[in-house]
């Protein structure tokens, strides 16, 4: 697969994940489930952007860990503080 095709597939995946998140915006699903899915989507989208768009692969392990830590810890913290403790 060419680099261009691969980048296009990652973009389509990101668009799909955004639409999944947007589908939860009507508030029909339970709040805790919505928060869990929407914030998990943040982690997945963030990791995809870091790895494939920013190009942080095995050549930059420390930077990659730091950035991945951000997109995992921030949504996790928001889930616990904003959704679990708020109940």
């Amino acid at each position, binding site marked *: 697969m060419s680099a261009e095709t*691969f980048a296009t597939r990652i973009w389509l995946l990101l*668009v799909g994940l*955004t639409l999944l998140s*947007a589908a939860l915006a009507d508030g029909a699903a339970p709040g805790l489930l919505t928060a869990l899915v929407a914030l998990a989507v943040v982690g997945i989208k963030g990791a995809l952007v870091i790895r*494939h768009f920013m*190009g942080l*692969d095995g050549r930059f392990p420390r930077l990659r860990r730091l950035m991945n830590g951000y*997109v995992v810890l921030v949504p996790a913290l928001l889930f616990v503080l*904003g959704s679990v403790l*708020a109940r």
Partner: protein
Amino acid sequence: MQLTLDAVPHSPPARSPVPGNRGIWVGIFCELTEFALMFLAYAYFRLTFPEDFHRGPGLLNTTAGVANTLVMLTSSYCAMRAMIAIRCNQSGACLRWLAATLGLGVVFLLVKAWEFSWNLDHGVVGTGNSFIAMYYYLTLNHLVHVVWGCLGLVWALLRTWAGAYSPADHEGVEAATLYWHATDLAWIVIFPLMYVLR
């Protein structure tokens, strides 16, 4: 997935311990730290004023939020294509992809301006509701970073047009696109907080 990664041309090895340059990473970490503090403030206010945050997303224009998320992701994709192009020594294609990235950045700003105007028409102002105050605080700060990112892209675009970059040396394009992706990352977190979570 791993198989396909080898198809992506990389910058030359051992050029720098970080992609782009150290300066842009200082900027990126300052930006992400600033947003992390704002996200903590969001969590605090959400705990303190749960009713405002439950009703808040329903007051906003979700279509504008979704549209801007797609615009931002697509602009990031264009930035990635610009990097692929310059690594393959296609400076003309790089120029076009950078122009597309910048164009979508401007579209983001225009959609935001329309959304703020829609907000004012519908009484969505930053007083009396902590969620709406947080919404303006976060999105206006993000908007500032989009403007910085656009200026960086203009610089990279002009330098590419002048023939300053090659597959061996394209630090400027890489730095400008990295900052753009970081601004996209911040929006990826902001979007569900403002438009999805109740």
